[in-house]
């Protein structure tokens, strides 16, 4: 009999213990949310290549070719570089229809700017000389007309050389 009572008591104790302990199982709240919204910074670059859609042989595409380079095509090929220089106000359109370096660029980049501008001016001169001979126009006159055209075509903010009322020339960003 005593053994049975002991068993009953043990079961009662376990039951009471379970009653009191089970609520304790809820434990502390664990917060998984962030106090600030999650910020994601995405920076991506998409390069789109157009592989000679028109079938036009671009200058420099075949360096072994010995055919003379068309100055117009050559100019077209460096237009993006020249535009970047203009955006950076490193170069401007001068009174003689040529590009002029107006800003300092250090190191290799500066050398690249100078080399590119020299090539651009050589191509422009070749084109203007050919046009002057064709139209039997003095080269200086043609240079002035081309300079005026370049000034007119300049985007707002690009450097241009303009003549002042008293006749002197100065460099200004093209006004709006």
């Amino acid at each position, binding site marked *: 009999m005593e053994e049975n009572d002991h068993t009953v008591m043990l079961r009662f104790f376990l039951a009471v213990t379970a009653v009191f302990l089970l609520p304790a199982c809820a434990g502390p709240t664990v917060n998984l949310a962030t106090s600030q919204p999650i910020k994601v910074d995405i920076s991506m670059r998409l390069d789109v290549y*157009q*592989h000679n*859609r028109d079938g036009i042989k671009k200058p420099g595409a075949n360096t072994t070719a010995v055919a003379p380079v068309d100055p117009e095509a050559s100019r077209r090929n460096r237009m993006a570089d020249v535009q970047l220089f203009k*955006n950076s106000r490193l170069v401007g359109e001068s009174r003689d229809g040529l590009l002029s370096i107006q800003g300092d660029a250090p190191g290799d980049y500066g050398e690249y700017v100078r080399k590119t501008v020299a090539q651009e001016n050589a191509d422009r001169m070749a084109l203007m000389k050919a046009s002057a001979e064709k139209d039997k126009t003095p080269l200086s006159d043609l240079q002035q007309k081309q300079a005026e055209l370049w000034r007119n075509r300049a985007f*707002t903010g690009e450097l241009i050389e303009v003549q002042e009322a008293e006749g002197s020339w100065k460099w200004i960003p093209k006004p709006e």
Partner: protein
Amino acid sequence: MAPDKPRIKRLWLRRLAWAITSLIVLLALAAVLAVANLTFLARWAVQRALPSAKVVLGEVAFKAPGELRFQEFVLKDPATNETVLELESGSFLFSFNDIRQLRIGEIRFINPRIIIAPNIGKLFTATGNSQSSGRIPFIRRIVCDYGEATAVVGGDPSLHVRANFSFDWRDFGSDLQAPLSLNVWDLRAAAEGSDTPLLVLHVITLAATIEGLRTEGKVLEATIQGGNLAVGASLQNFVNGFSTGSKKPSPAFDWNLGKLDIRDLRVELEADVAEKRHLNFAFNTTLRNLSLAQARDELSEEMQMVELSNIEVLSPLDPLTKVLTMRSIFVRFNLAGLLRKELEEITILNPTIYVGPDLFWYMEDTQKRLGTGSADTSGTNGWTIHTVEVRLGRLVIGSGGRTQYGLPLTFQTSLKNVALNNLATLKLEGALEIPAQSYPFPAYQLDVTTEPGELRFAYPREKNADNLVGTIKITDILWRQYRAQEAWISTTFDRHGINGQFGGKAYRGYVSGGFSFFFAPMPPWIGWVSGKKVDLKKLTNAISPQNFSMTGPLDFRLQVDAFARVIDRLKGDFRTLQPGRMKIGKLDDLLEKIPDTWSSIKKSSARIGLEALRDFDYDTGRGDFWFVQDQGIFDLKLQGPQGSRKFQIVLHADDSPLKQWKKTTTP
């Protein structure tokens, strides 16, 4: 007493025979005397017939039986002793039958020269009255194969008229109501002291009856076939002198005309400009029942119309370049107006103005030539056009006429009382009306619907002013998929090119801009556009529907540098004005294509990443871009509560990495 009767009879017969013989002898003697003094008798007879004239008659003699010929017959006005009629020679033909019927057989005038003096009519009458009621002799035939007539008409300066004539009148005087015709040809009228005739009439046919001429001075019909009339300063001087001078129309010309028929009279308008260009047109008319004075007035007042077609005005510098073409010009005027240098109306149909440097060179060249003194600069003797109408005109904006670029527009205009008083200082101001119309320009993928507008012009170009200034209101404009409404475009033209400004409502905002188009081969042009508060959702839907969208208002600026239809350079920037949402709809395609073979974690990660990239709410956004031909950079920077998005799209024309602009770009 009965035997005496035969004797008496014989006596009377003998007396009669003597009488007849004597008469015959007398007649023979008279005839001999008459023949011997034929010239004297003829001169006496003519002088008796024309007592008002002074008669000079040369030799008169029989050249053949029944033919009496005379030499050098001259009639002079006794008052002035001026010759009015001169015949080299002439002849009278008659037969026995003519004598029996008391008529003249035939009168033939050989090379007569008639000088029609103001009072010539009086010389041919017995009383000196031009409208005589005397008996008209009956002449079987009056003929003249070739004669000359001259006359001096008008005041100071006078008009010298010369003409040739011929006639062949049968049974003259038998029926006074029978029409007689006079053929006149090669009539030439020249101003005094001038060798150039003002008027040349090729053939004139006059018809009249003797009775009509005698009683009413009436010419039944005058028909003029072919000729030239030069309308210019000389004719004007003559008319002025005629109307103001002391010499009035003479009675010799005071006739009535039953019918005047003029065919193919070419009127030559002497343009009063340095180059003396002439304008010709045909003059045809029929007038009835009027006096010569009335005929002159009717002819001068009758409205005429002339059409000139396919006129091209070429560049003074390049003969292959057109500056103005006109398909038809209708000029309405009357001769009186021409003499006053007035044109009633000029209607120009289908003109095309080629707006380019050559047009302005032409205008300046014309202005220079007119200003050198060759034109009338007195301001008192110029031309006036009462009405100028221009219909269905086209305006072609071009670089020189050979190759046209730009947009053709139609126009019309109406001007009143355009005075060309002083061509050197002429100022012509007007407006070319742009009618409400839809203009499709497929080459430019452009459709424009305009409201009525006008293109104002001024000639000559004023200093520091533009020649053509126009504002065109546009109801709707559709370029590719971009649409604007309630727009306007204002343009000015000068010798260097075209400058314009425009504006309009677009995408709930307002877009404005401008352009300059320079006249040159492969004409360069620049343009700039700015937008204020443009709805990004509508704009991105138009640019890239479903693939990319943004919301909120946007301000932007854009500059273009181009040659003809090829865009050379493009540069711009933009910024958002309010928070919005960006969605890259194109990424939905990628989301759908996530492979099922991927693990759950991999698929979830890819989905989260793509959705984070696809949708982004931003507070601020800005960007810029530049492209040269087919290469350049587009930058977009967005900042929002969930971070930032920086996108850079680099467009490469080639795959060479050596270019500096490619190295320096960073997202």
